[in-house]
């Protein structure tokens, strides 16, 4: 490690400028932690401080942590130093995520969270059983509030797959290191072969939750289900919302408190209750995430009613592509829970040939069933 004191420019205003810039950057949504800022100062010490190009690169190389940060960095740099950035660093402009300040998570149930008048349903044990089977779209705000507590009890079990990593075990192949160490104890005589074998690892689960207008009554419940899944396996679970665009909300979902996680996700989702472009958004998911590895060998859970605005050829093609990459594709359609439901929407018919498990996701009981489907997918 280079000694920061030695490399730091002695001029105080450089430090102040960089600290101010880091603050601007944090407002723009880049983490820019203090140790990264320190790295930037060290980097500046090695470069020419008066060259805007050098300042730009020193900051970009040390403060950014991923491609998503780069656009924000460029914008913040342009604003803060109010000059042109040296050159356009990225040819393909990615659409910026527009943040909304309010999260209309549940249209129609305003102020349900803190309503003191809400009757306490916790005492009604039999009501709970009924509630488990009720369609979440038809609940009163109070019932919904109670159901939220039930989500905390949901323990999604994870599907497992064999790992390439081995653990000491009584069966399996010979573990040379432990065998020799053991032989040493008996003066170099191999008296017993020590063994190890493969362990199991959680398989990745990817949830794609439709947040378009037609899914609005179920989106809250589905996102709560997603939150429970992320809380159970934070590393091997990914959550995206789909609508007119793709939004990754895994980071927001990792917050411990479900309400905070949902509020954070809500403000990250720009297309809440908008239209649906399933085919296009699925393609965006596969291009940017799925094909690189997120979908490979994973259990993909698509939560949508399959309501597609445009033609369905694109959706059908993307579903075939998804099916080839994934270990299993589960489609959750809340409308399936209604009696007499037939998958007649064009999107649903296009998707079904590539779906392994077609389940309903309209009530607590259906969610419990869904955890079983995911586990054994």
């Amino acid at each position: 490690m280079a000694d920061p004191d030695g490399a730091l420019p002695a001029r105080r205003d450089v430090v102040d400028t960089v600290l101010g810039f880091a603050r601007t950057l944090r407002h723009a949504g880049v983490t820019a932690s203090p140790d990264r800022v320190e790295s930037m100062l060290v980097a500046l010490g090695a470069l020419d401080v008066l060259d805007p190009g050098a300042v730009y690169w020193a900051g970009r190389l040390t403060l950014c942590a991923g491609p998503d940060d780069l656009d924000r960095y460029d914008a913040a740099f342009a604003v803060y130093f109010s000059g042109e950035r040296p050159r356009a660093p990225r040819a393909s402009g990615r659409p910026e995520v527009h943040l909304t300040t309010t999260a209309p998570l549940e249209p129609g149930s305003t102020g349900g969270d803190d309503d003191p008048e809400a009757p306490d349903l916790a005492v009604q044990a039999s009501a709970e059983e009924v509630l488990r089977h009720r369609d979440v779209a038809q609940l009163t705000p109070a019932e919904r509030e109670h159901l939220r507590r039930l989500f905390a009890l949901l323990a999604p079990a994870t599907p497992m797959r064999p790992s390439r990593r081995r653990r000491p075990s009584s069966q399996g192949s010979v573990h040379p290191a432990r065998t020799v160490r053991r032989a040493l104890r008996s003066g170099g005589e191999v008296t017993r072969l020590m063994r190890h074998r493969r362990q199991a690892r959680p398989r990745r689960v990817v949830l794609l939750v439709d947040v378009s207008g037609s899914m609005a009554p179920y989106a809250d419940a589905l996102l709560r289900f997603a939150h429970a899944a992320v809380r159970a396996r934070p590393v091997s679970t990914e959550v995206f919302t789909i609508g007119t665009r793709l939004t990754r909300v895994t980071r927001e979902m990792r917050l411990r408190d479900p309400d905070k996680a949902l509020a954070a996700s809500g403000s990250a989702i720009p297309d809440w209750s908008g239209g649906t472009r399933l085919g296009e958004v699925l393609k965006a998911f596969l291009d940017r995430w799925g094909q690189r590895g997120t979908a490979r060998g994973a259990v993909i859970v698509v939560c949508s009613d399959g309501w597609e605005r445009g033609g369905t050829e694109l959706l059908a093609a993307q579903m075939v592509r998804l099916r080839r990459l994934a270990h299993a594709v589960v489609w959750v359609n809340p409308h399936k829970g209604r009696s007499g439901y037939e998958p007649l929407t064009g999107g649903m018919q296009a998707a079904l040939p590539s779906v392994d498990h077609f389940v309903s996701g309209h009530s607590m009981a259906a969610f419990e069933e869904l955890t079983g489907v995911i586990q054994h997918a």
Partner: protein
Amino acid sequence: MLAPVSEPTVAPPAAELPGFAGPEELGAALEGTGYLPDEGLATAAYLALVMHRPLFLEGEAGVGKTALAHALARVTDRPIYRLQCYEGLEASQALYDWDFGRQLLHLRAAEAAHATQDTEKLEASLYDRRFLLARPLLQALEDSPSVLLVDEVDRADDEFEAFLLEVLSDFTISIPELGTVRAVTPPLVVLTSNRTREVHDALKRRCLYHWLQHPEFDREVAILRRRLPQVTEQLAREVARATAKLRTLDLLKPPGIAESMDWATALHTLGARDLDPDLAARTLGAVLKYREDTERVQSMARGALFGG
């Protein structure tokens, strides 16, 4: 090879002059080896060298992430050690391993010589440096200064990241039976990732982060000309133009610079001096690696893609 194995002592890494005055000079040196970096990449490599920070490179497949490490090894005249990551990669494959076969033979020999009475001495002789097999990370620290390429770190699992973190933060490896190995000069570390998985923030925080993208047209032509001197200027320009066009088509796998080099080589091998539409169609396998992509491009009007 004498092992710089020592007791755990606090020895500050010797400050070594990088030998390059600034990013421009390093960039020029890299160009001398046939690797043409842009301003950002040259700055990143220079800072990695001066700050002793690992360089974390992300970008599409085939944009020259691995090639940069090899070019850096050439310009700094250091040996390069490459660790290809994969799931289940263990310490015994990345750091070091004991040569169990020889250890057992040694035990047998000691037994034959009736020297097994003093177990402590026997054990010390068993865990000697000569029975230690150095794997890439240990090799890179022992053979200092060196270049360490940790390729496709996103393919390794998070358990591996944890001990990579330990090695990269203070460039030491502690071997319980022997002591601590410390690099005299920290190696120049290049980590590459294709983003199949999000690498943990703790690892990224210790690194300089750079996102590599497809080169611009002029740079791509220059790279093709430099790496493939046998290819005509005309062919290089037309291949670069067609590849750039292919990248805008929203394909399943847009071709990288590695693919355009393959394509130019294939066309040259078939005797092309410029991008002949017939030859281009026959050699599409060098640039496009998905049946769907090939079908789409072949169904397009040839003039649209390969015409001037």
